[in-house]
């Protein structure tokens, strides 16, 4: 066809040009990758540099490596406690958000419900609140409930503010499942809840996992609520520990680098392990609607 003749005519220059374009693209991508990874790599390098080399540049790479920063950080109970707190809060918030958000999403996607627009509006508005606008009454409320400086306060808060995201994603997933599945179970005499758990939940498991993961990452990284609703090491989470990292005049950069890596590793592993699902989950709402 015309295309073939066209290609035959200018075969070599075309291929050469394509090669140059591809080399340029790959080169730019490599550069972008370096930009994305650079700060993290530098932080990792800092965490194993001996104290004496920290404030000296050049050399870029240290002659000797040390684990002393990690040892120092782990020997202090502050960070270990903060990591444990973060873990407890993030796991509980994601479990709660999935349970509550899943039920909401199910009702919105499959049940006859009046005032759907009002509910969706409330959900949307909550997700748009600047946290700073609610923080002082929330602080007073939590104090009145006797929950100040407890993990419970953080779990409830994180669940609330992650709920819109969970509902959003899960409604999408439930809607994607064919309605026949649900109605066949209902015609067989299942109640709505049994139909939900026996026929809707199994195929929606990937969606539930993505939502849980995103809530976990949100909760693990959340800072403002964690900073204001906690007051002592007993309930401080990892980001707060990093922000309040002890240092008299100058930040102890080696220890800080080690601590921040320890805080990053869990979310990083999750993100890398489930990358495909995360991207799918996050783009489901924005691309297709």
């Amino acid at each position: 066809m015309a295309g073939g003749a066209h290609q035959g005519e200018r075969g070599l220059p075309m291929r050469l040009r394509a090669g140059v374009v591809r080399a340029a693209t790959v080169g730019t991508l490599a550069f972008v990758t370096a930009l994305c990874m650079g700060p993290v790599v530098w932080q990792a390098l800092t965490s194993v540099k001996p104290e004496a080399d920290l404030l000296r540049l050049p050399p870029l790479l240290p002659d000797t490596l040390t684990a002393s920063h990690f040892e120092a950080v782990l020997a202090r109970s502050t960070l270990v406690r903060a990591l444990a707190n973060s873990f407890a809060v993030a796991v509980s918030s994601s479990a709660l958000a999935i349970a509550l958000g899943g039920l909401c999403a199910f009702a919105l996607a499959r049940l006859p419900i009046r005032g759907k627009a009002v509910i969706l509006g409330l959900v949307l508005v909550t997700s748009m609140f600047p946290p700073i606008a609610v923080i002082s009454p929330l602080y007073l409320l939590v104090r009145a409930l006797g929950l100040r400086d407890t993990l419970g306060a953080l779990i409830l808060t994180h669940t609330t503010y992650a709920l819109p995201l969970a509902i959003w994603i899960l409604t999408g997933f439930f809607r994607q499942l064919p309605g026949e599945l649900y109605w066949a179970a209902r015609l067989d005499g299942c109640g709505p809840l049994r139909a939900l758990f026996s026929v809707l939940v199994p195929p929606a498991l990937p969606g539930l996992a993505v939502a849980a993961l995103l809530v976990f990452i949100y909760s693990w990284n959340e800072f403002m609520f964690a900073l204001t609703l906690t007051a002592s090491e007993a309930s401080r989470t990892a980001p707060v520990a990093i922000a309040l990292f002890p240092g008299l005049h100058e930040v102890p950069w080696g220890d800080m680098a080690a601590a921040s890596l320890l805080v990053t590793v869990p979310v990083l592993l999750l993100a890398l392990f489930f990358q495909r699902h995360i991207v799918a989950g996050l783009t489901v709402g924005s691309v297709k609607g």
Partner: protein
Amino acid sequence: MNPAGGESAPVPGRRDGSRPRRFVSDEAWSYLCVGPGLFILVLLGLLPILGAIWLSAQRRLPIFGISEFVGLRNYAALMGDARFWEACRTTLYFTAVSVTAEVILGIGLALLLHGTDESRTGERPWIRVMILIPWALPTVVSARMWEWLYHSEAGLFNYGLRAVGLIQEPINWLGDPFWAIHAAILMDVWKTTPFASLLFLAGLKAVPPDLYLAARVDGAGAWTSFRHITLPLLGPIILVVLVFRTMDAFRVFDAVYVLTGGGPGNTTETLSIYAYKTLFQTLQFGYGSALATGMFLAVLALTAGHMVLLRPYLREVS
């Protein structure tokens, strides 16, 4: 047609035609399902917002035991507060520059990724990995990381710039009023651009390749087909990214708070940081709440504006 619509839903019953005994109707079930979620959203979401509005009409200094109703006087004070206007300026500048950069760079990166996708078959996971790293990193950690990169003696920035010969004396990135705000913006762009580009990439993949082919047959160059095919079809996603990034950037707190603490001399103090300091450092709950409420109203106005833009897409969702 839509079973969730209610009226058209088939009546649940057994195959033999006998109706099952049902104690709870479907509609009641739906409220039971939505109940717990709504309860917590109202208790910890809506109620605090109303609480903030109520607090904003009070003069409240817990340490002095002062608590009195002052009506709109806090808001009047806000209008005459130079620091408030400065924070507004800083926040708007931060939002405008970082969101613009994120959208432009994000589209560029997406095009790049899309281009390599076409030339080779299959997805390369390392790209997604690289993109997810800045996004997944806790903001506080990335602020500490960049603080170290910006360090005036041992920071990589000054080292690199001096090695290339661009500067002779180290720049005090976080101590200089001009550089500090831009240092914060650069960090924000680093953290959020890659993820925005993933959304754009998803949008690019949805463009039918036939369109480009047809354009090429018609003699359109790369720029023309970008201008007349890619950009219009990417429109909805650009809008979504714009809306959500604007909202996020407008309420920025932890990134800047940890990186600069609002300094030097309040030059990087955003509205969130000013409100936070008023609330929890000077413990002026009334005035701080007026600040926060003002910010909430600003976000609401921004959102309303965005909603008008987004309406066609939202209708599809609900």
